[in-house]
């Protein structure tokens, strides 16, 4: 039996009917058609489905959609501002941190949650935050660099 729920995603409210066993990633992708969060391992091992809920990076494949009512969800589609790309998005492009791009939204969302809480992370803290994000193409070298550079840009801008 489906349940009606209200989800607040990227500042918009959506009323959706969901089966209680459906995960947030499925509802985001199939019902709201926000396909930036990727469905991959579905067991919390790759981080490609990462979104932000109430300021925390969460794995949307391990989160039931019905549990998300009343929470503020941000996906990769919601971080671009009226002035253009988020500093992390710019930094990932400029520093060559994007290759196949499948894991990129998840990595950026994880990094955003980190920088929102800790605007001045050292490399260990960046590696720690990104350690749950799987990436086969970049070897993480340029992704770590991109997060470091985005943090620097943000600090200089403040």
């Amino acid at each position, binding site marked *: 039996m489906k349940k009606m729920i209200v989800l607040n995603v990227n500042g918009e409210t959506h009323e959706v009917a969901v089966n209680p066993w459906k995960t947030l990633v499925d509802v985001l992708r199939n019902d709201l058609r*926000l396909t930036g969060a990727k*469905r991959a391992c579905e067991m919390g091992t790759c981080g490609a489905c990462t979104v932000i809920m109430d300021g925390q990076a969460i794995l949307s494949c391990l989160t039931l959609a019905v549990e998300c009512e009343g929470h503020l969800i941000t996906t990769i589609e919601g971080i671009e501002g009226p002035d253009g790309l988020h500093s992390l998005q710019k930094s990932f492009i400029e520093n*060559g941190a994007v290759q*196949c*791009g499948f894991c990129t939204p998840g990595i950026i969302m994880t990094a955003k949650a980190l920088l929102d809480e800790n605007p001045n992370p050292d490399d260990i803290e960046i590696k720690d935050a990104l350690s749950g994000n799987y990436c086969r193409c970049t070897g993480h070298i340029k992704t770590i660099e991109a997060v470091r550079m985005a943090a620097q840009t943000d600090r200089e801008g403040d």
Partner: protein
Amino acid sequence: MPIKAKEYGVIGKRQPKKDGLLKTTGRSQFTDDIILPGMLYGKIIRSPLARGKIIKIDTKRAERLAGVKAVITQKDCPGIMTDLDRQLLCNDTVNFVGDEVAAVAAIDDDTAAEAAALIKIEYKPLEALFSIEKANDKGAPVIHSGHENNYADEFDYEIGNVDEAFSVSEYVRVGEYAFNPNHNCYAEHHVVIADYSIPGKLSIWMPNQSPLFIQKSMGGILGISEGNVRVFNLNTGGAFSGRIGPRKHDFIAALLSKKSLRPVKIRCTADEEFIVYSGGGYSRYIIKTGVMKDGTIKATDATYLFDCGAYWISGVNFLHRLKYHLFPQIYHMNALRWKERAIYTNNPPNMYPHGAGFLQLKLAQETELDLIAQDLGMDPVEIRLKNAVSKGDTNLTRAHYASCGLKECIQKTTKISLWKKKYGKLPPYKGIGIGCGAMNSGGYDRSAALVKIGEDGRCSLFIGLPDMGQGSHTTMAMIAAETLGIATEDVDIVAGDTDAAPFDIGAFAQRGTFFTGNAVKVACLDAKKQLAAVASKKLGVKPSMLIFRDRKIFPKGKPGKALTLKDVISSDMNSMGGSCIMGRGFYNSPAKTMEPWESTLAYSFGAQVAEVEVDQETGIVTLIRVTVAHDVGFAINPMAVEGQIDGQVFSGMGQIMTEECIMERGVVLNPSFLDYRLPRTFEVPEIDYSIVETIDPYGPFGAKEVGEGPLVCTMAIANAVSNAIGYPVKEYPITPERVLQAIQNKKKAKGNEPLDRLF
């Protein structure tokens, strides 16, 4: 004479990827992001047995379930073989855990899963084989009739007088190396959408490296012409030489669509991902090397045994035969003997891991070379330089090197890593190792490209080359922009649909930059010639005197007279008798008498030095630093070259140090990205790059491949581990258990093993 990099306007400069904005904002579409109107969801019913007879299949209950639109078994595809030994759906025998027996399509995933559970299949178990040793035993069951010895493939090759070369050798060494199964672990799981609802026309969406091979293979097997297979290649979430041809689920989705008359999506779950992976199977190398006392290599005699699993994937597995090319690729020798045996077992079908299994061969060869150097009292760098090929050389297997920076790479990487100060002088359990390699830039093949320049001066570049993240589309745009004197952002890439794309074999064998790059250059030169004809009339100078730069055309030395590209195109197109600017290009290898696989036009060369630290208590290896020097001919986009090097060092360290499918009775026991140990952020080493440029005479602007060359040089890591322990590790990956075993073996050997004294 090629011009210097600094004289180029576009190429040779760091260029962020053209699709960066799409990929960082969640806008880029991958196959699983697509939901087509009326689309169904497929589920495959797989064999739970490693080997057995199918007694009965009952699909009635599944067919009656509300929401089920198609159920298929072997009856729906009688006689259709996807490989010489493999039926599309199993008829009477199953040969591995996961073998495809039936499939369903339903209105949603949940219904499909429910229907799959309602299909009842009765089996009679048969004795199964899980190792190449057992498959080789006398009296072992025969997995495929006609292959009584369970050999799926046998290939022998000999060049030069091997026996004579060994007889004159002053030192001969034999080594045996084992490699456990591994997996490419694509970030994007296997997924396909097939629409075969219009008779005779199949449309298919899937991550892949070669739309052309998908067309040819699927068309051929399903009995339609390849042009009637329309492949949509959007984005591909990792390919790593594993997504060249179609897999079983691609055919199954097509059949389900044909039966239900609706598009069908099949997406592999994490468990299935480790069943359909066709990664690197267990393999073993036995290598005998003959050398002179001064280190000159005389001969190699190699035997390669490969567990191909339950079926022989003939379309791509022929490459196993040809690996012998790697032995004399960078080192001169007089003779080579090669024996390849692929052996059937009841493990899942194997193909090869990232790098086509070349890394494994190089691991065996270069570890042996280190051991020989030590036996002879030579420095590993010295023995490599002694035998290294150079520009202008033709090697034993007839590969010719029109450009070659191997020695320069070795010198550069050893200088930067301070090899001389470190080798043999590091404290116990710290090690340094070197690895060298080369890689072909495609084979003897071909690509086409079309370019259309609009009235506003924007350029649409039609290509059939996929971009799996390596940045090939950006590179092609840069080549077009450089040739036409415009900017990279003026070029739109039109790709990803075989109905629109010109001929291209695909993005594999490291051929993209070289072949499609050359085709793009030819197409743009064609368009440039058309533009020059118009501009020369307007400016009253010969076409050869025109300069194309910054979206303008002007007579040489007179930039003040410049016409914009827009003016030239628009005025001509809109005048009576004028024309439209469209360039076409085709690049084909120059005719040669040799077989296509015997050589290629250009090879990249590289050397790497790795530094490691081994914890003697836990056996954990820390990769500290990798110093890379790679001859890429010319770096069209240095940022992309670095990205390729990063990824390949990472992949190599995974294959060498941690990645292993732990198998038990044909089942992968660790089918997840956590239990299958891949390197993560904390394991990232420091990487120092040196891009060596040798300007290849055939490459576009002198460029060669960088798609797999750096990967085959990562065996430096293994040599560094052996150096740290003081004893070679001969089974891969070098997990902590194997490191501890090597430390034990060293203690047991007590100096009897000649290696001991040499470290």
